């Protein structure tokens, strides 16, 4: 249940986004380059460039373009099968094809030690009293914790779980393993749905999680695939540079 004020604000927010996700990325990147150049120049031409750049960044970050609005253009609308998610009730579904049998992958996923490695880019997962304890740092430095337990198992095909009462972020999810065509392996689909609690805390949690799920879930699947297929996960740990000796992978997890 959502109160009327939340609904209204959501509609208002959605109405303001009229730039599609790729265009927002491009807009932010190009804007950033322009501003960086302009700052170095420190001239009138540079100032004009900075204005253009700042506008592009604004457009990229907010997803709102004044000119599009006046022209009635909206590049943010995608069909239901697209990647847009309801920001107040984050739900995400991602798939990857892995070159192993469903049974093998089912067993690999069921092992808590493997799951801990797969999820290590965003969560600490530890077995606790027949359940799994999850500890996640949000992008705004909050810590979310919950325990999950299996609710349904279809041997070799599907695993699903949900959180126990008392966690800071209720969620449920499932992973399915389906044979792919022509010996491509197994199509693995991971589905997660978060249920933010009501009230102000819930709103801020939802806001925090809006940034997270798609990339984090996609990353988890890629890590799973790499670990199964190659026995290791690609990493930039201890990657040398003039910045020091490590590069964290950019998935929204705070170090």
């Amino acid at each position, binding site marked *: 249940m959502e109160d009327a004020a939340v609904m209204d604000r959501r509609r208002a927010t959605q109405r303001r986004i009229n730039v599609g996700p*790729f265009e927002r990325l491009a807009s932010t*990147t190009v804007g950033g380059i322009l501003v960086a150049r302009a700052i170095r120049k420190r001239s009138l031409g540079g100032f004009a460039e900075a204005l253009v750049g700042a506008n592009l960044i604004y457009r990229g970050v907010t997803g709102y373009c004044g000119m599009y609005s006046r022209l009635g253009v909206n590049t943010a609308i995608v069909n239901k099968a697209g990647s847009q998610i309801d920001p107040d009730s984050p739900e995400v579904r991602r798939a990857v094809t892995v070159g192993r049998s469903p049974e093998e992958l089912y067993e690999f996923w069921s092992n808590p030690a493997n799951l801990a490695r797969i999820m290590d880019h965003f969560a600490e997962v530890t077995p606790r009293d027949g359940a799994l304890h999850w500890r996640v740092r949000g992008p705004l430095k909050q810590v979310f914790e919950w325990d999950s337990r299996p609710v349904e198992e279809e041997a070799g095909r599907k695993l699903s779980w949900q959180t126990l009462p008392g966690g800071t972020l209720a969620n449920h999810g499932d992973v399915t393993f389906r044979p792919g065509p022509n010996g491509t392996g197994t199509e693995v689909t991971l589905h997660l749905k978060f249920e933010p609690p009501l009230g102000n805390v819930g709103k801020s949690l939802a806001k925090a999680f809006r940034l997270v799920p798609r990339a984090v879930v996609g990353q988890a699947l890629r890590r799973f695939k*790499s670990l199964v297929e*190659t026995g290791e996960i*690609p*990493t930039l740990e201890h990657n040398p540079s*003039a910045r020091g000796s490590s590069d964290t992978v950019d998935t929204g997890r705070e170090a």
Partner: protein
Amino acid sequence: MRALCWNGVNDLRTETVPDPGIVNPHDAILKVRMSTTCGSDLHFIGGYIPTMRSGDIIGHEFMGEIVETGPDVKKVKKGDRVVVPSFICCGQCWFCQHELWSLCDNTNPNAEMQSAVLGYPTAGIYGYTHAFGGYAGGHAEYVRVPHADVDCFPVPEGLRDEQAVFLSDAGPTGYMGAVFCDIKPGETVAVWGCGGVGLMAQKSALLLGAGRVIAIDRFPERLRVARENVGSETINYEEVDSVLEALQDMTGGRGPDACIEAVGMEAHGTGIQYKYDRAKQALRMHTDRGDALREAIMACRKGGTLSIIGVYGVMDKFPLGVMMNKGLTIRTAQQHGQKFVPKLLEHTERGELDASFLATHQFSLEDGARAYEMFKNKEDGCLRVVFTPHDSKPS
């Protein structure tokens, strides 16, 4: 250790950075014996490709000696002198198993970031932006090589370092470009670009049975190398009214059977289209200048093959209709090096290929920034600079 680092647009510096170490079980640490500049580095040095971070170690074309291996490395060993292709490949995924190596699914730690732009991720590359993996590059004393058994190719004893180093990228990229042309004996192949990759493509086309190779560039020095070291015929596009007409004159009006584009996003040209591209690129409104590519599409014979091995970002004013109406076959990829390196090593051992003529200049890593300036501006006939990171004497 010392390493050549990118610190911002047109700002390279040689710095002291931490040494790499074994992180994953299939890793090896390579003591870099020789590395080389690549034209595609100029794209991010000039700021045309995003997602570099200040402090990144650059360089993706290198060879060296294995000094340490992870517990699961079985085939190569400490002491081996090896050449390493620029794309990092696992050897296990569907793409590696199908010899589409640069599309490997398991080596890009930033796959999610890159997928937002490309739809699907590529393999990781050494020293070539964070979208392409963020791995530290080879213009350094040491470099970590993941999946060493798949990605390290032992160099036969008789071969010199400067013969082997270009088999990391320029060699296999050029060779792949020629393979894409599916050359029948005696056919004519035109190649745009006489840099390292273009010259290797020309040489490869001849090795694969082309009757004639016609090279197009504007630097007399490079065109001379194409004639003398490779055996190509040449066109200086600044000295003819029209490359299209020149090619038609040379081929009885048919046009080349296949065209290889080995220039990429910072092409130069002479006409109004070039000025348009240059202006838009300067304003960062698009990333690519496409004169060479457009010319190749126009000049290729009807039903011919266009092989694109230059590196591109986003380009507009693309003559899709010319391609479509002439029924061209387009082949393109980043290098599937692991497929071609063994072949190139064989050709080199048999004396049919010697890529060492590309190494026109040798520099200490300490003079890395100066070396890239020289390479970019083609000063003193510079084709490629090679670095010997463990030789600290400035040259």
